[in-house]
């Protein structure tokens, strides 16, 4: 039991086939889906899965913090909101090109991550959770008070981003593939980070910060850099979300949304990266399905999450690993 839970935390094995089957499969499904969706309710399916991929990017970046650094951030949605507001506010002023709005979205997220990370990372455990929550709520309330940009009601984005003048975000299908490309890029980046020298020190800090310090690493600096990277990736998700929904609102950065992101990571399986993608898909698709069945879908969804938390340690990925272990002998 413990062994299984631990296995996924070790350094990713050298590109073993078995370890890569699931991620490859996930991306093949994402890539092939629009071909099948063409036959029925295309707009609905594409919209839903685009949303899944966008949240998967945010969950992926949160997994960097929670799964590999034991930094349980309860304010991660703030970065998503900042990215989305960057698109919305610039668009309200007639700036639509992604060549400007994307760097702004990433820059604002990075700046916020750096400024808050300096404070948050001085704390540990529950205090870290509380302080990230506090900073998240701070941004949330600032957004609700932005009267020129819709305040509480949010802000409709009248025109989606263009790229060097080309309206590539306008078409549902091309937006879908942009999101897929971003997700794939984010996933590969995260994998490279985790296995790199930098990532190894970062993971080591989670294992034993005291030992890392006496070896000669100032772990705080590594955690801060990772916090900024994770914030920027979530900002990227926000940039895409604003474009996908043509709308931004403070609700994007509410603490409930941060909680959703945490659930996605835990549901899929922390510290695996692809678990975050599976988790976002499972979360959003279950939510979609249940809310179609009944208005009171949360009454079913809540207990379902509790069951996963109790019986599926290591999340859905953990269950998969265990099943494979049973079947394989």
């Amino acid at each position, binding site marked *: 039991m413990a062994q299984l839970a*631990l296995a996924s*935390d*070790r*350094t990713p094995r*050298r590109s073993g086939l078995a370890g890569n089957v699931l991620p490859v499969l996930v991306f093949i499904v994402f890539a092939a889906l629009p071909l099948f969706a063409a036959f029925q309710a295309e707009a609905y399916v594409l919209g839903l899965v685009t949303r899944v991929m966008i949240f998967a990017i945010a969950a992926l970046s949160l997994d960097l913090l929670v799964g590999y650094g034991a930094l349980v951030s309860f304010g991660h949605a703030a970065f998503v909101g900042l990215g989305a507001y960057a698109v919305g506010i610039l668009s309200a002023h007639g700036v639509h090109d992604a060549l400007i709005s994307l760097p702004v979205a990433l820059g604002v997220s990075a700046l916020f991550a750096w400024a808050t990370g300096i404070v948050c990372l001085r704390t540990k455990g529950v205090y870290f959770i509380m302080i990230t929550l506090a900073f998240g709520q701070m941004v949330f309330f600032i957004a609700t008070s932005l009267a020129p940009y819709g305040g509480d009601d949010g802000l409709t984005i009248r025109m989606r981003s263009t790229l060097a003048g080309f309206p590539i975000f306008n078409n549902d299908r091309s937006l879908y593939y942009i999101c897929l490309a971003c997700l794939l890029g984010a996933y590969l980046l995260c994998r*490279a*980070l985790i*296995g*790199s*020298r*930098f*990532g*190894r*020190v970062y*993971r*080591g800090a989670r*294992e*034993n910060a*005291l*030992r*890392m*310090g*006496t*070896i*000669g*690493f*100032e772990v705080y600096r*590594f955690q801060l*850099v990772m916090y900024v990277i994770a914030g920027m990736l979530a900002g990227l998700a926000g940039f895409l979300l604003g474009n996908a929904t043509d709308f931004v609102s403070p609700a994007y950065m509410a603490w409930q949304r941060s909680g959703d992101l945490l659930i996605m990571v835990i549901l899929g399986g922390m510290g695996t990266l692809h678990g975050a993608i599976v988790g976002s898909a499972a979360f959003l698709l279950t939510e979609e399905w249940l809310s179609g069945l009944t208005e009171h879908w949360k009454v079913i969804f809540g207990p379902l999450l509790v069951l996963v938390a109790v019986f599926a340690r290591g999340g859905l990925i953990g269950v998969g690993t265990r099943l494979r272990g049973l079947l394989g002998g």
Partner: protein
Amino acid sequence: MADPVLRIENLSKSFGGLRVTDDVTLDVRAGELHAVIGPNGAGKTTLINQISGLLAPDAGHIAFAGEDITGLPAHRRAERGLARSFQITSILPRFSVLENVALAVQARNGSSFRFFGRAADEAGLNSPALAALAQVGLADRADAAAADLSHGEKRALELAIALAMEPKLLLLDEPMAGTGRDETDRLVAVLRSLKGRFPMVLVEHDMTAVFALADRISVMIYGRILASGPPDVVRNDPQVVAAYLGDEME
């Protein structure tokens, strides 16, 4: 005589009303193994923690290789070549044995702000790490998870991590703590093979090991240095015998 590698002057530290380090003055010369012995609660580990930078002293100075390091954090001291082992094993349990040591190599080997390229595949980090493991007899366990090692093996890993830092001074806080006779003998042999390569401070309760290894011994009681000198002198010091060795040497 050349300047000592480590010079501790009038170091004091109190926890509340308890003086755990009481005006300690001590030096460690190039190449020597300086043992610090004393009963439980004498303040030996507290002293090691102050030398390695985990605890700030209330008063006094610590100079390492001619530089005052009293105010430096632990990681800066490690960068200067001050390595230590812990009395209570302090390793990265979910990392492989090799990676535990490779990280220590990495700390002294170029920037760690490299975001691409698999660190686990870097031969430049792995081969010195394997060499350090071979020195303590753990080379064949390199791929095991550190958590799966036996207690004695963990003690050896603890030592290998410190060795991989290419120390200019090695602080050993009870390296034999909790090991069996065979393992203790093995660790004593390893330490003997290291003698002369760099100076060491050895805190240890195993008197056989201490008298087999030490060039000089300081006896600590209630936070004070009671006596300091070559093993033969300390062994026969009436004060030391009365306060500590009397019942240890039976």
